[in-house]
């Protein structure tokens, strides 16, 4: 499969290892992966703030960069949620709708599209708490949210369960938002940081050594909160564990 690799702006700038792990993992699975050099962002920061008109040029650039691939894959739930479910500043031409429909978040791509059944290279002998970002949980429906009466399922848990040595811990409020929320994190920094402190403390009380997530933005915020209050917990993106990171 010819895959367009979409590395969102903050992963590019702050978490290059997450991008590298995603690229290597997709290559290990035998895909032809290409990273379009002119990519910047999906437009989500402006759109979430209500500035939809300001997204149009960024969205047009995104479509130019990612047209023609079989699939577009990104290690970021909230960006994919934006591209697939919002992303309407542009006229919805066939080119636009094709790019939107072909854009997948890494976990759902591995779970639903290529249906990976083993990660023989992966071993992670640690206690981890899973953080489903709200974009993946309630937007992309990676897992059954606790508010709904439906059978339990969890795509990230399914994938991580195939990693040798991993052990899961469950925080008291597994589905509670961590408070990042894009521009909310600065617009309402007091509440945002309090939510972050509560989130990392909840995982720490459950005995997690690591918080793992499909969204680096949540992790960036949580890490900032944990470091400030001295909660000794580590953060890792799911792509890194699935690609064989050991710590």
């Amino acid at each position, binding site marked *: 499969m010819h895959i367009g690799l979409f*590395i969102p*702006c903050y*992963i*590019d*700038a*702050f*978490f*290059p290892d997450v991008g*590298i792990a995603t*690229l290597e993992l997709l290559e290990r699975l035998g895909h032809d992966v*290409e*990273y379009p*050099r002119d990519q910047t*962002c999906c437009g989500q*920061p*402006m759109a*979430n*703030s*209500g*500035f*939809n008109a*300001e*997204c*149009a*040029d*960024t969205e047009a*650039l995104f479509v130019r960069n990612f047209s023609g691939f079989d699939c577009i894959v990104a290690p970021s739930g909230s960006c994919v949620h934006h591209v697939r479910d*919002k992303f309407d500043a542009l006229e919805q031409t066939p080119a636009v709708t094709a790019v939107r429909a072909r854009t997948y978040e890494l976990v759902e791509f591995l779970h639903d599209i290529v249906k990976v059944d083993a990660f023989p290279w992966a071993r992670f002998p640690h206690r981890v708490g899973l953080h489903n970002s*709200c974009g993946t*949980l*309630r937007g992309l429906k990676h897992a059954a949210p606790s*508010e709904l*009466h*439906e059978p339990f399922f969890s795509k990230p848990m399914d994938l991580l369960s195939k990693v040798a040595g991993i052990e899961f811990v469950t925080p008291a*409020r597994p*589905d*509670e*938002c961590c*408070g*990042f*929320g*894009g521009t*909310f*994190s600065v*617009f*309402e*920094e*007091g*509440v*945002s940081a*309090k*939510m*972050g*402190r*509560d989130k990392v403390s909840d995982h720490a009380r459950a005995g997690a050594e690591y918080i793992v997530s499909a969204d680096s933005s949540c992790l960036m915020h949580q*890490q*900032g*909160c944990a*470091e*400030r209050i001295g909660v000794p917990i580590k953060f890792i993106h799911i792509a890194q564990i699935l690609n064989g990171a050991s710590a």
Partner: protein
Amino acid sequence: MSARQHQTEAQPSMLHPELCASDDPDAIVRDGRRLDHAEGASKPLRPKPEKQPRGALIRGNRPVNQAEAAARFIAAPEHEKMHDERLWDLRQKRDREMHGIPEWEELRSLASAIKEHTLAHLDTYLEEFEVHATATGVHVHWARDAAEHNRIVHGILRDHGARSLIKSKSMLTEECGFRHYMASVGIDVIETDLGERIQQLDNEDPSHVVVPAVHKLRTDVAQVFARTLDTDPDNSDVHYLAERQREANRPLILAADAGMTGANFAVAETGTFAVCTNEGNADLSANVPKLHIASIGIEKVIPRLEHLAVFIRLLSRSALGSPITQYTSHFRGPRAGGEMHVVLVDNGRSERLGMAEFWTSLKCIRCGACMNTCPVYRRSGGLSYGATYSGPIGLIIDPTFNARKYSNLPFASTLNGSCSNVCPVKINIHEQIYAWRRVLVERHEVPLAKKAAMKAAGALLSRPAAYRAAIAAADTALAHLPRFVVYNGLNAWGKHREVPHPPKQTFHSWYQANRGARS
């Protein structure tokens, strides 16, 4: 069994943990029973209780600064912790009740469909309600807005020479500024819901649609009652406080000239309405005086009596995690010798019904489930919103009343979507919050600085070369800036969080170096 155990087990599980005070080490227990009168509960000196944080500062029509009020709430950790845990407890109880109903999701869909159908034919059902209610002897009035509602009610009271009015909790009367109006025309209004009465005595709005004083610790209530009911300010024992309030309020209830209730549901085919409470106070308000006035928002109508069953099953489970409210009272016309009036109030609802993106907010049955689950609300307190409706439902309703004053509210959300999932009538609350942000930007109701920043971001992110240059600079800057610059008061990220550790290179430059030859 020890006295301690006895005390703990005797507490009904639905009691507010803060109100139970089961961990009170100073309680005086004799013969296995706790002494709750003033003498028995008197305590040795203890540290001064944390002061209650007050709500948002209201400055006329200027945008309410919810973030500022929320920060003050968080700065009162005892209040914030109690509030968060108390409401999270309600959410968990709601989940347990939900799991006891196999057809829960079907019920939600049904409730949503009934409401959408009714709203699409609202005129027909309202007229049907009027015809049937009138046939049972009810006087039906129509109020276009809050002012007309208040005038109508005042007129009814004046016709009866009424000087005092007891009422049960009603968010609609909060919308109408009813108590203030009544005070201005010299009529005493006495709230009969305990939480609402606490708020009335404290001259504060309700902070939650179901549990109006949930943001208060019992020590706060002790201060309010000491000021208004002459109780011992150092005695925050809940039994003592509740009893003193009851002693003070009951004579007022018995002597009242008129009673008022809201309504949870009004049934078109019967012309009747139902009021759900846990204290039975609506029954007191409606049945003690001979005159009963019910103020009902026009969106409360449902077509048939059988539809009521759907909503009754959902309401209290969603609100408090109890199968049903203690009292579900059906009012089917005036008592012999009594008089009943219904005031059907629009107050902006028709206008909302015409808003393509927001009309389904009228499905709301005021259960408060979205507030209980909202991580922002739980940590901010309902009064931080500075509006009649707080929490997620408030974010989408309040701007319909005043888009400028409440222009900040739709931004007080992480868009996490939990509110939409718990909503018993399936309002897409978080999508409407998102839609409101667009509307507010289009109407220029956002700060100019934000607009400038977003315009600049849009320009930068659509120009790859400029963007690359900026990212490189930001990286370098972050790596070399001293902490005091990054963590100054203007840096909202760094105030309570560390900034991310800048890596040696971006992914882009790594790719260039490691895969560059391929493309």
